[in-house]
């Protein structure tokens, strides 16, 4: 009755053993760290994080407070121009506007000048894609095949350079700053280059190759909303003209939100302004071209100094302080409960 066992061992000998390897991996015994949330680790995590957040928060708030910033809504102040621009037939009528303001304190250090737009949906999907990066690299591409529509070609087939809605709607106000010093008016020297990222200026944007710029853009036409062709964006500086114009590059870097600031100029620290902007009366002279009232937008001009953490946005500092306080309080409460025996 036991002969059924007899042939099993022979089979086993004939085959190689099917015994699994005794390796740590196959036996799921890899050396491992089994972290556990103990009271000590949790409390120290909370206190350390709390302390870190609080200190970072306070630093951020202090540095943000040291930033001097002045922001002027000139679409309200220049309401005449705003009205004029509401009608697109007046596009070639020049409208000048000046805005006075007073600096109560000196703005020391580098001072930056921004224009700000509100309610301008640069992040709208249709808008964001409406560009041709290949064209901006200076290549001769068929813009019809890009996402630039409807700003690709004119009816006669002349391609627009640059194409697309972003380029077409480029911010075209010019803003100059004047310092009223001892009843004389001094124009504040402004730097219009060096405001964009190196990669943008040197990689993403290249002019078409030719002996001069106007011939490089021959056979193309300006976008419909522009007043002058792309090769006349900055006639004074060859390296700031065409696609590599800083104002253009900065505009082409679309903003994340509908309210945004773009760097416009930097104060050149020369003579009176070697230490920044001294306190006193100033005037913005604005050539008002960019219509915003139609879409209930607003335009700002902003002057600001800079610290390590950027501008004067207090959000991050406050958020850090709140987060740090919350962590510390949670830690303290847990500690108290442990000490009083509520928690094991």
């Amino acid at each position, binding site marked *: *009755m036991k*002969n059924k*066992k007899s042939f*099993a061992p022979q089979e*086993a000998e004939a*085959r190689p*053993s099917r*015994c*699994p*390897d005794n390796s740590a991996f*196959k*036996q*799921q015994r*890899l050396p*491992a760290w*089994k*972290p*556990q*949330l103990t*009271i000590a680790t949790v409390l120290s995590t*909370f206190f350390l*994080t709390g302390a870190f*957040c609080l200190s*970072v928060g306070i630093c*951020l708030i202090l540095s943000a407070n040291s930033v001097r910033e002045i922001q002027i809504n000139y679409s309200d102040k220049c309401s005449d121009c705003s009205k004029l621009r509401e009608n697109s037939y007046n596009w070639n009528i020049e409208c000048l506007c000046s805005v006075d303001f007073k600096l109560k304190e000196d703005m020391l250090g*580098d001072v930056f000048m921004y224009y700000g737009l509100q309610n301008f*949906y*640069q*992040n*709208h*999907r*249709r808008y964001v894609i409406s560009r041709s*990066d290949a064209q*901006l690299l200076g290549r001769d591409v068929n813009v019809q095949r890009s996402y630039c529509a409807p700003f690709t070609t004119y009816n006669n087939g002349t391609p627009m350079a640059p194409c697309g*809605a972003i380029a*077409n709607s480029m911010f075209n106000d010019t803003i100059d700053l004047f310092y009223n010093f001892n009843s004389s008016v001094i124009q504040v020297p402004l730097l219009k280059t060096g405001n*964009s990222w190196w990669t*943008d200026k040197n*990689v993403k944007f290249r002019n078409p190759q030719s002996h001069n710029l106007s011939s490089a853009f021959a056979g193309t036409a300006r976008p419909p909303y522009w007043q002058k062709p792309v090769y006349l964006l900055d006639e004074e500086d060859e390296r700031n003209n065409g696609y590599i114009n800083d104002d253009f590059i900065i505009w082409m*870097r679309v*903003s*994340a*939100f*509908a*309210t945004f600031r773009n*760097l416009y100029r930097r104060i050149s620290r020369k003579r009176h302004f070697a230490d920044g902007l001294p306190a006193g009366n100033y005037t913005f002279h604005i050539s008002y071209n960019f*219509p915003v009232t*139609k*879409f*209930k937008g607003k335009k700002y001009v902003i002057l600001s100094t800079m610290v*390590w*953490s*950027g*501008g004067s*946005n207090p*959000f*991050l500092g406050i*958020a*850090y302080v709140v987060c740090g306080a919350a962590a510390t309080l949670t830690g303290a409460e847990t500690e108290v409960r442990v000490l009083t025996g509520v928690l*094991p």
Partner: protein
Amino acid sequence: DQHFHEQPQFKRTILLCFKKSKYYNPITFLPLNLFEQFKRAANFYFLVLLILQAIPQISTLSWYTTLVPLLLVLGITAVKDLVDDIVSNMFKNTKWKDIKVGDIIRLKKNTFVPADILLLSSSEPNSLCYVETAELDGETNLKFKMALEVTDKYLQEESAMADFNGLIECEEPNNRLDKFTGTLFWRNMSYALDADKILLRGCKVRNTDFCHGVVIFAGADTKIMKNSGKTKFKRTKIDSLMNYMVYTIFLVLILLSAGLAIGHTYWEQQIGNSSWYLYDAEDYSPPYRGFLNFWGYIIVLNTMVPISLYVSVEVIRLGQSYFINWDLQMYYSEKDTAAKARTTTLNEQLGQIHYIFSDKTGTLTQNIMTFKKCCINGQRYGKSVPLDFSWNMYADGKFLFYDHYLIEQIKSRKDPEIQKFFLLLAICHTVMVDVSDGQINYQAASPDEGALVTAARNFGYVFLSRTQNTITISEMGIEKTYDVLAILDFNSDRKRMSVIVRESNGNIRLYCKGADTVIYERLHPRNVKREATEEVFANETLRTLCLCYRDISDDEFEAWNKKFMEASVATTNRDEALDKVYEEIEKNLILLGATAIEDKLQDGVPETISKLSKADIKIWVLTGDKKETAENIGFSCELLTDETTICYGEDIRQVKSTKNFCVGVKNVQFLKLSQQTAEEKQKQTEKRRKAEAYKEQQQKNFVDLACECKAVICCRVTPKQKAMVVELVKKYKKAITLAIGDGANDVNMIKTAHIGVGISGQEGMQAVMSSDYSFGQFRYLQRLLLVHGRWSYIRMCKFLRYFFYKNFAFTLVHIWYSFFNGFSAQTAYEDWFITLYNVLYSSLPVLLVGLFDQDVSDKLSLRFPRLYVLGQKDLLFNYRKFFLSLLHGAITSLIIFFIPYGAYLQTMGQDGEAPSDYQSFAVTAASSLVFVVNLQIGLDTSYWTFVNAFSVFGSIAIYFGITFDFHSAGIHVLFPSAFQFTGTAPNALRQPYLWLTMVLTIAVCLLPVVAQRFLSMTIWPSESDRIQKNRKKYMAEEEQWKRRQSAFRRGLSSRRSAYAFSHQRGYADLIASGRSIRKKRAPLDAVLGNAVTEVREAHTAVANR
């Protein structure tokens, strides 16, 4: 069609369970495989998405964002399919033999019967053929089949067989293993055929050199195949849950897209229409733009339905299956079998089992009976060193006994009681002997009997041969022949058997062996040894049997013999009349002693069962055996204990047969009456083969009642009924079931249960072939469930929860962003980030958690079976957990969006450049997200191997590496429109301000999680938290235990003794008829003796009517 198949080594029959290779051809593989894959809903969905993306009006993402992940998913699946295909092809050609109905085949000793066969002739006298039916019904005793005399007579030679022509009319293929009706028409005569003449597929030919038969049913028509049920595609509970969740997410996706589309419509009306800079020369109305944006959002938000979910789940399951295959602690060295996960898609279900249905023979037991101990004249034997039986030329080498003193006693021949004891064992039985190659083989009706006779043989009392009325034994080398005057055979009511022999000195003596309870009633009143024998083996769960004798005077015997003769020719109620006569002579017995036979359980069975029941798993034993045997095993594997009340299902059946619907109620009362104090309810159900059609209510009552009980043992069930029981529990309890078995009779049950486990044991491979998991020993079940099942479940749940979380945290950011971009379907991230997020930046750590995570070690999982309960209750993954994961993801996405949003509002960079551009924002949000999700999985990982650490930090590193690459100058010049983020990462990430933004985002996302984890762990600790906390203590304890390895075994169940002769009555009739006892005779003798008339020839044909 007169084949003659030689079947010398008919290999283990392989049932039709191999998948056909669907696509092996190298050319057709790709298209066919793609077609197969796109039949899956998820893949099809992504194909549709891909097509949507090709429509310019609504294309909101670049074409590659969906294509790259989809290609990856399809590629991985295709490789997996290809490997599966090749593996199954390697199996395909082996061992498949083509047997057709009407073939005549020859079967040799120890081969499996490959089809249902009508036995024609055999090498044994009287055309007997012994078969073992363990594969069919689990019974291991030999059964004999007998061919028609006429076929046996004429069909011994091959030539005669080749000319055999007859017509067989028989029933249609069915699943009744014990019934067969048919007629053989041959030579103008018709012969009735019944089940005794049929060898069923799956039986094993035993002790018969060869036999011949004609195939009646082959392949799928065979009775065992009819019993095996259909192979169903099994899916896990989590699978279906996951599908519903994906549908839920899909619905959420549609609703969100619709909401955002409405938002876009509104925005276009209010703002968009007046925004001159957005002019696109298309004259679409705002609602139409909204409609287009609906599709745009469907595309943008598609990552909410995780594309890599299914393939990741498959990869994890595959890995877990490999860990099962590799487990050294489930490797059975004696048979060189490692555990094998044959199905790789069910692993986490192993952690959710509620009910285990176990076969008995070969699964719980080893299917070996051993003579363990004996008690002679009040003296116990059986505890010492192994004995050397070499002095005995007849000894069976495999026999082991542990008492030296007994041998000395026997050899000294001092004690007549001992001599009588072994004489009785050698004489009083219905075993038949078969001498081949000088070896004595016994053919016993029950393995118990075989064990006893083998024991006697080893102790020098060798049963040599028997004739119709004599029996020859060798008593310590001296051959003696006794006249057998009568054999009083066993049946289940009598629970004993006796022989009456005339000894050489002329005395007539009755030898009797039987169950202790039965024997005690019949002992001589003055028999003093009674007390001593009692309770001897009671504590050891051995099957005890009392031996006794009685001297009978000639007169008494004559008188009795007369009655006996009368009774044996009685035409009505012969059995009852015989029983009555037997009763008269079996009295005033003198007790010799008792034997103890062990129906050897497999190692570790009681421990495994107790572990599993501590894990709240209910264990039902389903066996084809009879009630007593089953009950006995129930006790020995500690499924039943003495505190438990046993109630028998006959009571139910009686009630049921009167179509009374109050079965449950009545039996509960019965239970209450019988067990006032015992807490554990147990019930043993005997379901005789009854009509298959239960009334639904009765079924429900049966299940309800049975589930009330702590353990259920069903006996006398057919393979089909086994499956039906499983089906009932599945249907009415909605519980996850596991069936474990080793024989062909378990195939149906294994296929029916949610998970089928095959024991690759003694009995061929059929159960293994249809199982989902297989291993060598029952005890590995605890490791499979409590360790691998539990781990797999926890890993899968962790994986799924995290997967849904990370995709929500990722995708919902787009939605928050749309409130600030006019619902224009602008994405919050770079397209390449969207493409690679699920593939590279967040997939590996969670995959590794799905493969490696362990909350508690395997040792602790086994030590605390209660840990298993969480899987049964679906605690770790259910709709609540799912929505919590989604909520967690949504909150994370809020933080990831709004903290950078706040930081970006009207800010400037350190150097005055405007950092509030879209691209910097996208990089900030994406970096925060990568940090948060990877650190979150770090928090979720409870088993940090170096691989985990590597993957978490590696993912972050890969993210930065790839981002800096894609934002580099060179790649933009090459592909200006595909890589537009030139310089963003280097420019943005040198701003300390943005790093501080990210740090804050991470802190705000993760600190509350840490706090919540810690609080819930301290206030509502789960079982595994508690154990994990104390794991050092437990380890120290374990060390201590090892040091003082005590021989202490906890108290086993006490007073119990239930010997059962297995299964069926013995061969007494056969012996008495003398048919089998004559030696082989020439076929011609038989021809003459039976005087059959003519010999004619015609064609062989078998017709299934």
